[in-house]
């Protein structure tokens, strides 16, 4: 009980200090660029809790989820196929490495040309940007699977789907999740930028609109919403990772203890 109270105090201490300093510093401020804490919270509720939640925030999140989800599935599937076949891997690697090196926002104007301006273009941009870290990490993970494990699977006659399901995927999981961790921020960045570019709705679009109209408090609240989305995504990822890799973290703890 006492220990959890202490860690709560540690977690809240600095944020409380910072917000207090911010509040005191802006209490008599007249600059329109610097928001006050109370104003920002009011703006957050007033601007985003109503209609905008359904017209801007949720569609943005849906595009992000669809694009990133597809990128993860596609990356793991292609990564598995490529990683299991050394010839195919050598064949694909230079092209994959090149695509990974292209800064994904560059794809937005290009995809705008090929697909046109639509929701599917935004999802396609997210997929095309977020797939590479997952794909290349899956290839690496599959490649690094322990040879003794592979021989054991073979000796026990575990082939094909079962081998992928029970040996390869678990062994590559830490690496695959490291790729997913890199893919998530890319997905968010592409969601926002594709909306800033071609859109009439969405989080990125609204924030740019607020800035152009000099609606500074609204703009700040938009940045805050974006930050909250980033934090929520990172919390969900950590929870999923802990669940999927609980055996791995357990092993590492054993390693560290010994």
């Amino acid at each position, binding site marked *: 009980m006492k220990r959890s109270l202490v860690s709560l105090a540690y*977690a809240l201490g600095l944020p409380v200090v910072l917000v207090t300093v911010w509040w005191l510093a802006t209490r008599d401020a007249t600059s329109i660029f610097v928001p006050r804490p109370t104003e920002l919270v009011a703006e957050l509720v007033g601007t985003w809790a109503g209609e905008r939640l359904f017209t801007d925030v949720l569609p943005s999140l849906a595009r992000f989820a669809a694009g990133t989800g597809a990128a993860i599935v596609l990356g793991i599937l292609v990564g598995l196929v490529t990683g299991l076949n*050394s010839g195919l891997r050598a064949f*694909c*690697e*230079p092209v994959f490495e090149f695509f990974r090196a292209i*800064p994904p926002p560059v794809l937005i*104007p290009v995809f705008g040309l090929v697909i046109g301006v639509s929701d599917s273009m935004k999802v396609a941009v997210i997929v095309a940007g977020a797939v590479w870290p997952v794909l290349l990490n899956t290839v690496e993970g599959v490649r690094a699977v322990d040879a003794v494990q592979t021989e054991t699977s073979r000796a026990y006659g575990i082939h094909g789907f079962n081998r992928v399901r029970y040996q390869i995927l678990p062994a590559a999981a830490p690496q695959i999740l490291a790729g997913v961790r890199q893919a998530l921020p890319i997905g968010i960045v592409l969601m*926002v930028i594709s909306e*800033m570019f071609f859109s009439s709705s969405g989080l990125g679009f609204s924030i740019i609109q607020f800035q152009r109209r000099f609606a500074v408090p609204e*703009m700040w609240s938009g940045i805050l919403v974006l930050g909250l989305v980033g934090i929520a995504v990172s919390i969900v990822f950590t929870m999923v990772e802990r669940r999927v890799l609980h055996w791995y973290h357990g092993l590492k703890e054993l390693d560290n203890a010994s």
Partner: protein
Amino acid sequence: MGRTMPRPGNGGPPLLRRALLGTAGVLTFLGAWEVTSRTGIVDPAYLPAASEVLAALVSNATLTGFWEAAGRTVTSWALGMLLALLLAVPLATVVGLWPFLQRTTRSTVEFLRPIPSVGLIPLAVLLLAEPLQQSLLIITYGAFWQVFVQVLYGVADVDPVATSTARSYGFTGWQRVRDVVLPSALPFLLTGIRLASAVALILAVTAELVIGTPGLGNQIALAKDAGLYASTYALALATGLLGVVINAGVRAAERRLLSWHQSVRGDAS
């Protein structure tokens, strides 16, 4: 002869075969692109053939404007990285060495780190007048956290035996940091730099596309608006090549600086 040779095992195909297969892969990709455009599966007006795009890339490479734009992109990338390093390394070292600070800052770091730095674009535009400064704010914010978190892990990972040894030999605090903490955190720092350099390039190009800071990203937007689609694709490829060069450079630096470290020495043998 194959029968008497031992199986190559997990090492993969030999170098020459890999190079040949890789080249074949690139050629196949370019061929597929050429066919898709020439046969009109995708409207050739919007997806120019690979040969046209490569020709546009070559003719771009003869123009000073292209190199100037590439230079500007690299400059804002490099300045952003430098700022991020100058801020992140000392801060993370201090926070990492002092458990009290680490505990108090954890929640704030976890809150600030995932904020997508493209969200700061409108803020940068409002607060800063100079386009380069606007870019730098965004690049530095994104790159900072990559380096900061890695260095924090690295400083926490220092072998306690090494620290106590240094202490019993009478090392001063500064000597301990310089000779014990920083070398053992170096692999983490370099990983952070590698991750940050990719993020920084993405953000540099993003700022150019969205804000219009001069550079390759801005050239892409201009080429597209002017209807020069082959050039648009050529410039997109050029940013990819820039990414490859930066990545290769960072990896080479990593190998050089860590030549003493197990992870690199193990590779060589």
